[in-house]
Every structure is written in structure tokens, then in C-alpha cells.
């Protein structure tokens, strides 16, 4: 019997490419957000609202990750911002290499802010660094208020949580205080915004946070 010592991080390759991406973003002065949520929490709607409010003030671009179809990318391209679609063909998360390849279709020097909309999934995308500056997880009031404790890793690794669909609160059993308590137990430093991407309620604080991170 012989023991060969390896001691190598399993996701080392992904992490290295993510670091290359981060350096590229830094060199081009682009602030990059990895947008995460379960399917249907409102990632694309929040993006549409954000883009239509910031357009003219901040130069935005979007990388869309989906398991199938370019429906989201088509929605975003209607807003006249550069968008690249990644179709993962079944894979449940984006990896740094896919993002790196997608960047070839964008002129980063022309952007201030890039959103990477990850595949709708609260588990797998948490493990893969894409080279982003901040991870933003979107939860919605039509999901359970116990989502943070059911999917703790996602809420633990995120920097910001957007609680979306607050316009629907009167029609659900969602307990906002309970939700926020759960998120703070898992991640005491998480910044939380409450929004309705549909009506625009609460969007101002989210936009102010974004603008504070974009290089002038």
C-alpha cells in the first residue's frame, strides 16, 4: 500500500478562472453582481426594473444563465443593453469558465455594472465563484419565509438579500420579521432590501446600493 498525498482543492480550477475573471473586471472598472435565486423569485423582473431605472446613468450589461431557451435574454435585450445568453443544457449552475467564454461577446470597457443572472437554483450556484464582486440572493414573499434555514449555504455566502414581491404580502402567510431573523442567524452581516420589482416599491434603496458600488 502506498499513499499519495494530494491536498488539492476540488474546485481549484474554477477558483483560478474566477480569479482571472475578477482581475479582468477590476482592470476594466466593472462592478459585477452574481444574481441568485430559486426559479420564479423575480431575478429577470428585478433586472428589467433596475435597467430601466439606471439606464442613461449607469452603463449596464447582462450575462443570462439558463438551463434552456434564450427567453430571459430576449426580455433583457428589449431594454437595449448588451446581453449574452449562456445555455447550460441541463447544468444547474454557472461555472467561471462559462462566464469567461461569455465575456468575449461583451465590451467590458464600455460597462460600469455587469449582472450575471445565475441559473434559478438555491443550492448548486452557491459553490461556484464566478469572479463577481458581490453575490445577491433574491427571495420572494410567495416562497416560504423559512427559505433561509432550508437553503442556508446560499444565504450564508451572499452579501445582499433582496426580498422581492412585497406587493403580494397581503395575500400570503409570509412573515417578514421571521424571514429576516432567519437570514440574520445564518448571515449576520447580510444587507437586506425589500422590493417589488413589479410595482417599483422599495427599489430606490436597492438602486442606491448599486450606485454606491459602481466606479464613478
Amino acid at each position: 500500500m502506498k499513499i499519495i498525498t494530494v491536498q488539492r482543492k476540488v474546485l481549484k480550477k474554477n477558483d483560478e478562472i474566477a480569479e482571472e475573471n475578477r482581475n479582468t473586471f477590476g482592470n476594466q472598472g466593472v462592478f459585477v453582481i452574481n444574481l441568485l435565486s430559486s426559479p420564479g423569485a423575480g431575478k429577470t423582473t428585478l433586472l428589467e426594473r433596475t435597467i430601466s431605472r439606471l439606464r442613461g446613468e449607469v452603463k449596464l450589461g447582462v450575462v443570462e444563465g439558463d438551463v434552456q431557451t434564450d427567453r430571459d435574454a430576449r426580455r433583457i435585450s428589449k431594454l437595449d443593453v448588451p446581453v449574452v445568453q449562456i445555455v447550460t443544457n441541463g447544468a444547474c449552475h454557472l461555472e467561471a469558465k462559462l462566464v469567461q467564454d461569455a465575456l468575449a461577446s461583451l465590451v467590458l470597457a464600455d460597462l460600469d455594472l455587469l449582472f450575471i443572472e445565475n441559473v434559478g437554483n438555491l443550492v448548486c450556484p452557491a459553490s461556484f465563484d464566478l469572479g463577481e464582486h458581490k453575490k445577491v440572493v433574491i427571495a420572494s414573499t410567495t416562497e416560504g419565509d423559512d427559505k433561509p434555514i432550508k437553503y442556508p449555504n446560499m444565504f450564508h455566502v451572499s452579501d445582499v438579500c433582496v426580498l422581492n414581491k412585497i406587493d403580494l404580502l397581503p395575500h400570503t402567510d409570509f412573515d417578514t420579521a421571521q424571514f429576516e431573523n432567519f437570514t440574520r442567524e445564518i448571515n449576520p452581516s447580510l444587507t437586506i432590501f425589500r422590493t417589488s420589482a413589479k410595482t417599483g416599491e422599495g427599489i430606490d434603496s436597492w438602486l442606491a446600493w448599486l450606485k454606491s458600488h459602481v466606479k464613478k
Partner: protein
Amino acid sequence: MHEMSIAQNIVEIVEDALRDEVDPDVERVVVKIGRLVAVVPDSLDFCFTAITQGTPLANSQLVIEEIPFQVRCKGCDKTSQVESFVFRCPECGNVKLETITGHELFVSHIEVH
């Protein structure tokens, strides 16, 4: 099912580590996974078995060793093991904690005959 992607990465790392071995008969591949890493051991084992079929690793066993989630409290400076995902010091209740272990995901070693 990011376990498939993780299994592929493990196999690549093992193949790389075995490059200088002549006909290695691999018995065990030992990986260490922190409690905070969302990997399902059974799924990972299933994926590893599936992708190593018909390869030199086909008869090897994937051994998954779990690393506990340990924190040091920035308030009372005590080190504790945390069982759940509640980020609060079990000694004094402070939420300002430094994670010592729990985020690991690495191939530790390979045992060959």
C-alpha cells in the same frame, strides 16, 4: 446536481496526481468536505462511480470524510463546534464569529496498491 461537476474535478485531480505511476491500482480516493459545503455524499459517490466506469479508477472507492464546522468567537475568543447553520457563539451568544473550519472541499490523498 453539482455533484457531477465536483466528481469530474476530483477525477481530473486524481489522474493528474497519478501521472507518474505505472499501472496504478487505486484502492481509495479520500476527499475531505466541510460541513458548510453543500455536497450530498451519496450523490457524489454515485457520480464518481458512474464516471469512473471503464477507467483505471473503476475499482476504487471514494471515501468522504466530513470536516466539522468550527468557529472562534470574536467576543469571548472561545472556539466551538456548531452543529446547525446558526451563526451564533454557543458560549456567549455573540454573532461576530470567525469560521475556522467547515468550508473545505479538497482531495486529501490516494491509496494505491
